[in-house]
């Protein structure tokens, strides 16, 4: 492999990793506020199909992206009502959302399987930045959504760590009772973060159909939503690490295909397993400080429903 091949592969890695990145950023925000949403796969699929249909119908990428985001957000809103207002079990609700979203997207999109569209996110080289050797072609000759995801990494990190809104979000996930007693509207925070998570999952879906695969087919995400959920643990709930993890997982996916192309045949199933295996390894070796308190970055009240009057 020469340099251009490597650069091309890393560029493909960034594109492949962006689906994970968008979805896991959303999930990080939701989980930071204490709401575990295992419905990422479902929300992503619904975003993927609605975004694709909107693109076919409206010929507008902006409309398509908005539609996908709204659809993902609505899915998350179902989860929010169930888990925050009705205090249902978050694991069950999330799983139901995934199953529901998978079925719904297949149903809604059945007439669009194989339909092609020209309304796609194309690579846009950023003047200047794309000229930087090596980094330029890898990071700055990508689709708009890649740039959006990079900005989101910064924005989410900043909001979570440097603003009072971030303080409220993190404390809602750590200790909702204390947050409530401090006069913060925990329910509003949790609703907001949960829906934001769905919005990004929907966008990740649109990225799949309109920027990466450029087509709609049933179950197009093929488990990538689950990888995004695992990535949150892998990244220990930090946006920056989610970026690294996404690209690493993206690379693993690309590598399988590339190696085959150069004649080294490793079963693709092995590569599909790798992200989960890596997550398990992180969970085993990455958590806990000897003599200190267990700290893997997980919000202390993650997935525990908060009921003000409960004992």
């Amino acid at each position: 492999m020469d340099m251009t091949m490597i650069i091309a592969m890393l560029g493909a890695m960034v594109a492949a990793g962006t689906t994970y990145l968008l979805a896991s950023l959303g999930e990080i925000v939701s989980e930071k506020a204490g709401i575990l949403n295992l419905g990422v796969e479902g929300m992503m699929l619904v975003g993927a199909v609605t975004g694709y249909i909107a693109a076919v119908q409206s010929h507008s990428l902006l409309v398509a992206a908005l539609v996908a985001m709204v659809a993902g957000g609505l899915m998350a809103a179902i989860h929010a009502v169930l888990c925050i207002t009705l205090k249902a079990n978050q694991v069950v609700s999330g799983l139901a959302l995934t199953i529901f979203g998978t079925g719904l997207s297949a149903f809604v999109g059945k007439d669009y399987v194989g339909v092609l569209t020209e309304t796609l996110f194309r690579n846009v080289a950023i003047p200047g930045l794309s000229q930087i050797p090596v980094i330029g072609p890898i990071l700055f000759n990508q689709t708009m959504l890649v740039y959006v995801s990079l900005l989101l990494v910064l924005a989410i990190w900043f909001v979570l760590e440097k603003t009072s809104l971030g303080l409220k979000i993190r404390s809602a996930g750590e200790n909702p009772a204390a947050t409530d007693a401090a006069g913060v509207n925990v329910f509003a925070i949790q609703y907001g973060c949960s829906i934001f998570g769905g919005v990004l999952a929907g966008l990740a879906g649109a990225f799949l159909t309109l920027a990466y695969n450029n087509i709609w087919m049933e179950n197009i995400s093929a488990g990538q939503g689950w990888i995004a959920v695992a990535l949150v643990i892998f990244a220990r709930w930090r946006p920056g690490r989610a970026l690294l993890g996404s690209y690493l997982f993206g690379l693993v996916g690309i590598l399988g295909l590339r190696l085959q192309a150069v004649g080294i045949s490793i079963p693709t199933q092995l590569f599909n397993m790798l992200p989960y295996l890596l997550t398990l390894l992180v969970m085993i070796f990455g958590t806990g400080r000897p003599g200190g308190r267990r700290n893997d970055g997980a919000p202390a009240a993650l997935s525990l429903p908060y009921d003000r009057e409960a004992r």
Partner: protein
Amino acid sequence: MPEPTVVLKGITKAFPGVMANENVDFTAYKGEIHALLGENGAGKSTLMNILAGLYRQDKGEMIIEGNRVEFHSPADAIKAGIGMIHQHFKLVENFTVAENVALGHENTRFFVNKKNIARDITAVAEANDIELDMSAYVWQLSVGEQQRVEILKMLYRNARILILDEPTAVLTPQESTRLFDTLREMAKNGCTIIIITHKLVEVCDVAHRVTVMRQGKLSGIAQGEEISYQSLTGMMMSENIRLDGKVPAGKAAAAVLEVKDLFVRGFKGVQAVDGLSFTLHSGEILGVAGVAGNGQRELAEAVSGIRGIQSGQVLLGDADVTCASVRARIDKGLAFVPEDRMDTGLVGNMNLADNLLLRSYWNAENNTVTGIHYARMAEKVDQAIEQYEIAVGNKKAPVRLMSGGNLQKVVLARELALSPSVIVAAYPVRGLDIGATELIYTLLLRERDRGAGVLLLSEDLDALLKYSDRILVLYRGRVMGIVDKAQARIGTIGMMMMGTTPEEVAKIEAVSHF
């Protein structure tokens, strides 16, 4: 006459199966320290949670500083100048002190400037003589320090009405004194302070006015001169219980528990128990005195087997149980009343019967061929309810719904059911009302007279002196000395708790006599 700042009229609040508050009136005035008393489950916390906006009353109205108010959330109460420090602190453990204080405060701008916030908070802390490291994480702080964070939080919000729910239950005497100094100062500055407590001595000491509740209803109000130990107990108790002073000594016999050269690491890896040896005999209560955090918790947990040790030996009777499992120790006659009844003692979501079974479900008598013998358990539950006077609405309901005193009775009922030879009781009366406290001590004395050895950990020196046959003073994980009841004096023990050896104490006392 000072102006009333808090007026509650006809407050009623029902929880499934219980009337927690029934038509309660309550008035507190500007600049006073107002004590709210009552037995466990009387509805004190419920009433104050309503005032703090956490619960919604079913009926009744609230007038704060002359205005009718309607609270939909704690945020509304904070706006009205009300701050509450709950029985279980509401702090985010993984946040720093400064973050906890700033959280949700209206002055905290969108872009958090940590330096400015820390400066503002430090200013408030200094003005009120509160010492705290603003950048420490809450989980690193002692209970007393955590409470100071809560107070600071309220001061930073300019709370004019401060509610404290059993603030001294987990404090050392020194910390309590310090707290009351702060509260007196705040009252002098025009705050209204409401404290819930079970410690009547404190009430007589600091309260200007007292409201007593009983079974969800208002049962009496006292102020100034009328506040005395006798008058208060009279108002509190459903029936007058006898609180007499003398406890007959036990008859110590054979050794039932021996601890030799015990070393145990505590939370965060500190050397919590540092070469500890003692012997507990059948028929005696060995009290363990010490300032909180000197290894009490680790000692109790190591003996009962839920915490690993570094080195040393633990003997139950003649059996070496140093490496034995918890279950093996139970089978050898060890009972454990843990410090934290809700976390370590009971499973909140299970009912009474299941909790009573926790430490004996494997015994043949509790099983049939098809599994747990629930018919027999139902009888045992009824027996326990009767014998230990457990107040329970629904026997099938999860125990977390019960009040603190009743939970503790459940733990004791379970632990004493197996006629243990050794009972490790860590702070068994923490948060309990006088009636329940008295009952628990009576039970422990009865076990002692039956022939059990009791290791009693407590922060209440008066109680230790009253009920123990010998008192072991713990200091930094070591035995400072073991004093017989006959020779024990509060002053002596207090000095030993601060690290003075018995020899030095004797010298000091000899000098002061002349």
